[in-house]
């Protein structure tokens, strides 16, 4: 432990030195004033961008005043530029001579929604690279930036990883603005706040955090902002980067932040007091704080009736346990605790295993590793080849291995049940934790049977109880146990019983459902006056 911490300390020191060096970042252009001569400005832009082909500069004249506009082809919408910038400029026939041309253009000539005057050079780059068009006018030390964003974006489509039966079919896209709009459309309240950051020294990625003022816990919001502000990296390519940089503990297999591509899920989480972190370029929105049981709640739980969703949720937790312990139980039972298997079944297993040359652990390991390879290959392969792989896999795993006497048929059953159970966890990040820990439990079961397995489970439980997500205990509301907050754990209560928000996330504004929401229809006789059955 102490060796590790001393290494960490050394690294910290090194990081400080790095920070010092980073202050003179060679990639960041010097902050210069904008020149009077517009041609000089254009020349400088071209120089800075190394004459890149997608930088479009066009000179124009507004009556007698000369100027030029610059935009990045592909980021700005060509049609908007020509219709709302160039056209109005060129149509202005005569304008009074003694007039502040800059103010005139800003006020009357640019027909765009969002226009801004910029005085410093860094902002010119920022604005240009986010798809805006910059207008330089001759003799002015300021520039105008008009919003002409309009790049090609993927349209909103159905979610690909988190499907639901009754829920809405839209999902997030790679564009930050589209994503915030999807959320805002669902919560029409001015209390839904969006704060934006630019993270990534080179990439300057747009990151937005959304929360509902008055519901979200101020301290958690502040903490998230602080952790985001601390990030100092060259680029943020996906929300996974952010997730790993702000989570509470790195040394864990369990996810301590939640991610989803469904706007309805984000909406419900915002209403519980969580904070959403939206990263430009990723269709997955990260929400925090996350608790363990949340990873077993699927959107369909809330769209279907409570008894059905309760049953399905318990099934899901059971499946998680099977995915975690399936092969380990098999190994422990066959190597250490044969007496626990009913006699007829024990004989059947022994007969099947007679020709298998390996001990149960090696047998299980071979099958599990084969399956993991198949799954990984299936993910990466082009779709056209994918089918071939699944056929080969089914044959190899299912039949050939058994016929060759490599593994016993019951092992195939165990592995396939485990694999299928693993897919039933709604969130991939949690499923993959079970996948990894399964191997550790298999090892423990090989060494000491059920005793080893249970020690492993106690170990995992201690670990889970020690985790926190932004200060919220991970096993909330089970440990620490909170009797008032059990409506959404193992049993999904009827929706009218969701009276309060989880108190550990939202402070103050806690009541979410009014009194007497339980359906209380009048007696049938009052509606329909029947005179007995006919």
């Amino acid at each position, binding site marked *: 432990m102490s060796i590790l911490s001393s290494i960490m300390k050394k690294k910290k020191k090194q990081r400080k030195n790095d920070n010092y060096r980073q202050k003179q970042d060679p990639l960041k252009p010097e902050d210069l004033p904008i020149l009077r001569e517009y041609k000089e400005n254009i020349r400088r832009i071209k120089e800075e961008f190394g004459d890149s082909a997608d930088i479009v500069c066009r000179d124009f004249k507004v009556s007698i005043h000369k100027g030029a506009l610059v935009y990045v082809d592909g980021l700005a919408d060509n049609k908007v530029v020509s219709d709302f910038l160039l056209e109005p400029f060129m149509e202005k026939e005569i304008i009074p001579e003694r007039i502040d041309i800059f103010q005139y253009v800003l006020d009357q000539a640019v027909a765009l929604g969002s226009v801004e005057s910029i005085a410093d050079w860094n902002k010119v780059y920022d604005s240009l690279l986010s798809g805006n068009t910059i207008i330089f006018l001759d003799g002015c030390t300021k520039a105008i930036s008009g919003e002409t964003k309009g790049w090609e974006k993927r349209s909103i489509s159905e979610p690909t990883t988190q499907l639901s039966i009754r829920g809405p079919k839209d999902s997030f896209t790679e564009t930050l603005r589209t994503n915030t709009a999807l959320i805002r459309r669902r919560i029409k309240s001015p209390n839904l706040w969006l704060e934006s950051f630019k993270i990534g020294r080179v990439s300057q990625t747009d990151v937005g955090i959304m929360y509902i003022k008055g519901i979200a816990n101020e301290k958690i919001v502040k903490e998230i902002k602080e952790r985001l502000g601390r990030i100092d990296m060259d680029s943020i390519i996906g929300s996974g980067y952010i997730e790993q940089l702000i989570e509470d503990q790195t040394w864990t297999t369990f996810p301590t932040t939640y991610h989803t591509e469904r706007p309805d899920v984000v909406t419900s989480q915002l209403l519980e007091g969580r904070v959403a972190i939206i990263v430009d370029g990723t269709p997955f929105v990260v929400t925090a704080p996350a608790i363990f049981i949340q990873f077993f709640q699927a959107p369909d739980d809330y769209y279907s009736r409570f008894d059905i969703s309760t049953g399905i949720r318990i099934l899901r937790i059971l499946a998680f346990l099977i995915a975690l312990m399936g092969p380990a139980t098999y190994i422990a039972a066959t190597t250490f605790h044969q007496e626990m298997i009913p006699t007829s079944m024990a004989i059947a297993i022994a007969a099947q295993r007679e020709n298998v040359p390996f001990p149960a652990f090696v047998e299980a390991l071979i099958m599990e590793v084969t399956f993991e390879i198949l799954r990984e290959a299936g993910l990466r392969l082009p779709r056209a080849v994918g089918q071939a792989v699944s056929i080969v896999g089914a044959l190899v795993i299912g039949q050939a291995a058994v016929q060759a006497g490599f593994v016993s048929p019951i092992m195939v059953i165990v592995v396939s049940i485990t694999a299928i159970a693993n897919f039933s966890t709604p969130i991939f990040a949690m499923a993959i934790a079970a996948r990894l820990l399964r191997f550790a439990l298999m090892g423990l079961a090989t060494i000491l049977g059920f*005793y080893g397995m249970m020690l492993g489970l106690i170990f995992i439980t201690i670990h889970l109880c020690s985790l926190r997500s932004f200060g919220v205990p991970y096993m909330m509301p089970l*440990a620490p146990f909170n009797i008032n907050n059990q409506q959404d754990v193992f049993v999904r209560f009827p929706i009218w019983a969701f009276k309060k928000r989880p108190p550990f996330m939202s402070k103050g504004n806690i009541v979410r459902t009014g009194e007497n929401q339980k359906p209380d229809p009048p007696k049938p006789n009052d509606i329909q006056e029947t005179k007995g059955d006919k």
Partner: protein
Amino acid sequence: MEKAKINASQLFVLVVMFEMGSAILVGLGASAKQDAWIAILVGLAGGLVLFLVYYRLYMYYQDIPLTSYAQRITGKWVGRFIGLLYIIYFLYCAARVLRDFGELLTTTIYTGTPLIVINCLMIFTIIYGIHKGFEVIARVGQLFLMIIYFLAIVGFGLVIFSGLINLEHLRPILENGWKPVMSTVLGETLTFPFGEMVVFTMILPYINNPKKVKVVCLSAMVLSGINIALTAAINVSALGTDLFVRANFPLLSTISKIKLANFIERLDVLFMLYLMVGGFFKISLFFYAAVAGAADIFKFTNQAQLSFPLGTLVLFASVTIASNYAEHIKEGLSIVPIYLHYPFQVVIPVFLLIIAFFRNRKKNAEATSNPS
């Protein structure tokens, strides 16, 4: 002291887990034969009185553990010596329970595995838990209590539906009068498990709501006492007096008799699950008390540092305190209660309480006389 706070319900869970931990597994009160359950309930009553002694001491010094207030009561050096003795006592108890636990596994299921391997893995898990802090132990307790209770109810139902219960075995009640029962109470059930509540003198300062301590602890003790007595009664009625007295682990024998629908049988794994969880908490709490006490006396700011060396100590002590199981049991039944449990659970606390009473009375008298 560690900066931890636990709430009343967590304290309740810890007391229940601690009391039931190993008491349910071993044939508690077996020397009272079919009246074991009476001996347990009488022991419970005595244990409640003992707890009130610890509670009084806690009321005098709410923010500090036993090892600190022993110094306040008897002076710096005598107090430190008493504290040191308590640390050794707690470590010894932890080692004893660990030995019990290891012996159980090596004699029943893992006959070929060395004791030290079994104990080593267990103590490693416990060290990890202590390392994570006391709050984490309390949370783990909450999670496991649910599982344990669920299993207990399932097991209870299975025992009944397998038709094992024969209430005739419980009769005649008080066959030889109160004498054997009382000697069992004094020799066994009073000190183990109820007198072991002395561990909580090290833990009570963590409670965030001191007003609830009394009710919570007493009710948890009563609940666990009733559970233990019930288990003893079930064991007697399922096995018969003779087998109950002779079995090393009566509950294991009862559970292995379960047979239902030709499929549900040999549920030893249920027993083992209970054993692991109960043993874990019992050892953890003793061990935690020792770690906290050592950190308190030797002024360690980071007490997690102590968990590893002391854990190693417990591990080796557990293997070396007795050369075989018979010796271990003999020590546990005839030596430990008289020479260890009575002094540490009864004599020293009562003695501390008497001095504390007079000291505080003097202080109170001064406090009331001064203003006037």
